[in-house]
């Protein structure tokens, strides 16, 4: 606690405060210790790409930020606010209730590997759903917002289709529009192109690239090394539940750690 306040007091003036700050994050599923002390800071308006072999815990870390999993140890702050818990005056932690958690989640947009669009709603209804029912926005206003977001991802002409009638790439772009309609401060991408046919990957990456250009804070778990090299401000390589190497996009071409070098050789 004390180190954090002094840090904020001294460094707050020069460097921008991180929007996401993970401090010694641990996650265990029963006996399986998946994350073993992750420390990470994400500056506002930057793109952080998390690389790593499957089973390295990178998706779990992303899901922790959005509270789809609960922390086993450590702390994650979003905009300086601890997620999932609040500190009582006596210093102990108390779990937040459902309403408070939903409130925190609504500031984060998330895009999943399997799109997870609502198949019983049209594309337009998918995008309108959360603004209308979570933010209680009037329908007409939500409709305009949804149309704008769908045009932004290039799907203005697919509004009345059902997700099952769209290609995988189109579905994923709808999923991005659906997340953007909640005006999130941070977008989380969990392997957004892994379930796509190769020829459809580009259209999704293009949307993500333009989002990054607009200054959206993004944390992306992906295997697309080219995208990472081109768009990322920060690269994090995870393996075995720890951050092995971390730095700017240049580390992709000049990896220091053997494990990172091996990984890059396998995926490139």
């Amino acid at each position: 606690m004390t180190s954090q306040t002094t840090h904020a007091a001294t460094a707050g003036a020069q460097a921008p405060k991180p929007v996401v700050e993970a401090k010694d994050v641990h996650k265990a599923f029963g006996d399986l210790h998946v994350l073993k002390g992750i420390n990470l800071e994400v500056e506002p308006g930057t793109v952080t790409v998390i690389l790593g072999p499957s089973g390295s815990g990178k998706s779990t870390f992303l899901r922790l930020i959005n509270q789809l999993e609960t922390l086993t140890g450590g702390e994650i702050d979003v905009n300086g606010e601890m997620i999932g818990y609040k500190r009582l005056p006596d210093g102990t932690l108390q779990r937040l209730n459902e309403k408070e958690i939903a409130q925190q989640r609504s500031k984060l947009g998330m895009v999943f590997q399997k799109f997870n669009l609502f198949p019983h709603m049209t594309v337009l209804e998918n995008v309108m759903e959360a603004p209308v029912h979570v933010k209680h926005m009037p329908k007409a206003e939500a409709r305009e917002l949804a149309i704008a977001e769908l045009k932004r991802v290039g799907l203005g002409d697919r509004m009345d289709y059902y997700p099952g009638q769209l290609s995988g790439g189109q579905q994923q772009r709808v999923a991005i529009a659906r997340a953007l309609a909640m005006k999130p401060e941070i977008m989380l991408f969990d392997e957004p192109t892994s379930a796509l046919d190769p020829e459809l990957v580009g259209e999704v990456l293009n949307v993500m690239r333009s989002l990054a250009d607009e200054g959206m804070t993004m944390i992306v778990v992906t295997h697309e090394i080219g995208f990472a090299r081109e768009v990322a401000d920060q690269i994090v390589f995870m393996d075995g539940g720890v951050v092995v190497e971390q730095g700017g996009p240049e580390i992709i071409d000049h990896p220091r750690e053997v494990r990172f070098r091996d990984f890059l050789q396998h995926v490139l």
Partner: protein
Amino acid sequence: MPHHVERDGEGLPIPNRIEAKPVKRTGQIVAAVIVALLAAMLIHGLVTNPRFEWNVVWKYLFNERVLEGVGYTLILTFLSMIIAIILAVILAIMRKSANPVLRGVSWFYIWFFRGTPVYTQLVFWGLFSVLIPRLSLGIPFTSVEFWSVDSQTVVTAFNAAVIGLALNEAAYLAEIVRAGLEAVDPGQEEAAKALGMKRSMIMRRVILPQAMRIIIPPTGNETIGMLKTTSLVLAVPFTLELQYATNAIANRIYKPIPLLIVASFWYLLITSIFMVIQSMLEKHFGKGFEARPVGTKGKQTPLPGKTEGEPQDDVNKTNEAAFLGYNA
């Protein structure tokens, strides 16, 4: 046909359209002849056999008491199914709750009402006002009472019949609903959570509408079953529904067979109407799950990428829901 070039929906030519004769299906024709022959024999037998007494059937088909019986059978079926469906959804959600007390209550309910015969339960509800003469609202284990009422005025024969049928049916339907809820991809709940939706809203807006598609066929089955289970309410005793009404007439005029035909006719007619309603409901809740729209020429979207990322149905869960219906 070289002189005439066929065109597809977008006006593009299909120059060598194949126009071949279909495979000869001799077996189909043979089968059709045999079935037609058997059907003709059956109908001939039914019509010419004097013991079916079609004149009596015709006389009582639209008899006032019979029509009243049809009305009561329909009311009993609908009321008990509506109550049962509401209860079943509550029980299924309780069964999946994080709260162990709610889970336990739901489990006990299903265990009890599925484990005893519906006939026994109907007898019990018929005897309710004898077992518990007065219903009252007060402080438990004291003599303080704010309000009380005679059981007989609340649990009438009709109400006892509805309560008995509904509570029993809810236990079966609860398992069907639970299987339907579990068949919805867990990714749906995660996506809804990530959008900031709360549990109750996720259930109402995302999970239930999708589960309905899986729940409806076995529920239609249950409704048709319920239509005929209503004939058991004579256990209460409630004596105005179709089976009892026709049986009473049959006993009075000593002609059981024609009156059984009258009852069968009405049960079959109602079942047929239920089947039409069921297929309409299936269509409604199947929105978004059907194949791509037809007739959108020129605007057809490319085929979905063949990836495991497509929303897939959990076939096992769907089957489980269906079989629960058939076994119920």
